């Protein structure tokens, strides 16, 4: 219990003393499937949500977070890591593109199966005068669950993810590098 408190305390210390702008965002997700390893085919692959921490690094932001989603082999939990690069900013608006890699688990009782994926999502953000921002993105993602070949024929999918969410700044370094 004591070590748990120390870790939480350290986390808050790092976040509060960090000189870079940091954000936390929550994005409900929707996935339109357009192809599988068997060929092109439209299928609604379900929804999900992403909880992401972002920190300004160089001209953009490093992204890291957790994601839960539905997919053709069931449900999965992923850990995301990526980089978001702005290509246009004006007033309260910011346009950027995020590239992320994912690794995680397809959720099954008997044994979880490894999944991985990569995605590229152009996004537009609108920043309020306070510490909040809204975001919308539409991109492309490749997901793979190699071990699922022992159970079904579809082991990889290409989706067009739609992300709509809200974020807020964790410290007062807002807009330094939006």
């Amino acid at each position, binding site marked *: 219990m004591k070590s748990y408190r120390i870790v939480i305390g350290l986390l808050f210390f790092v976040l509060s003393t960090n000189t870079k702008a940091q954000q936390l965002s929550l994005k409900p997700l929707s996935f339109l499937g357009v192809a*599988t390893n068997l060929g092109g085919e439209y299928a609604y*692959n379900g929804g999900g949500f992403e909880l992401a921490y972002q920190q300004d690094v160089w001209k953009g932001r490093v992204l890291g977070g957790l994601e839960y989603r539905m997919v053709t082999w069931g449900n999965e939990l992923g850990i995301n890591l990526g980089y978001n690069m702005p290509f246009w900013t004006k007033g309260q608006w910011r346009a950027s593109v995020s590239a992320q890699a994912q690794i995680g688990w397809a959720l099954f009782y008997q044994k979880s199966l490894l999944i991985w994926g990569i995605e590229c999502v152009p996004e537009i953000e609108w920043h309020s005068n306070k510490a909040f921002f809204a975001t919308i993105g539409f991109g492309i993602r490749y997901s793979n669950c190699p071990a699922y070949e022992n159970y079904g*024929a579809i082991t990889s999918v290409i989706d067009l993810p739609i992300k709509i969410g809200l974020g807020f700044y964790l410290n007062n370094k807002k807009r330094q590098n939006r």
Partner: protein
Amino acid sequence: MVGILILLVVNSCSYLPEEVDWINGVQVDERSNYISLKPTTGTRFKTGLLFYPGGLVDPHAYIPSLQGLAVEGYTIVILKVSANLAITNRNKAASYKVHFPEVEQWVLAGHSLGGVVSCMDIYDNPSEYVGAILMASYNDGSADLSDWDGAVLSLFGSEDRLATVESIRANEDLLPRGINIERLVDMPTSPTGGQTIYHQIDGGNHAQFGSYGAQSEDGTASITRAAQQTAIVNYIRSFFNANDWS
């Protein structure tokens, strides 16, 4: 937020299917939205079976239970549903009928939660289906089918602790009037429209309607999975024959 995520993860694990012992004569076509089973040779009947899997069960787990019907000539379509929960894709079955133009009439079936959703679909579109098959399932009250003129077959296991015999009996009023049969030879020989045929598989449990191992909180079966699934195919075949569905 992290708490919600943990809850989601804990409650969204599905049961993986066990290895399929394929029988000769089945043509499998897997797509993003369904798995279809058809006979490779011989007659293809004009009656098809659309099937909703049980909650949080991988759809491939029902291939062993249903492939015996495909060999005999029936088109079987096992639907894939979001999150492996049929309730998230209510009325999905009707939208996939057009993918099988050779089939002229459909029976809608489901295991457990899949059976509940089958009843909801039929309630929404009663003329889309000529019959229904409930496996370890019952109509939960959201869709009263007591006046439906389709034929219903309800199969359940005596050792099922999830869809218990008591819960199935308690919801009989929501299905067409019932007839209990104990043996295969008791199956009516004339069409059973507007009736529900109930058969208890002695020794059967909930999980052995599919092939995905033991299910949490289920009873222990006193017959093998193969025996339970043979009974399932035999009763469905006999039900189809009674209604002249070929």
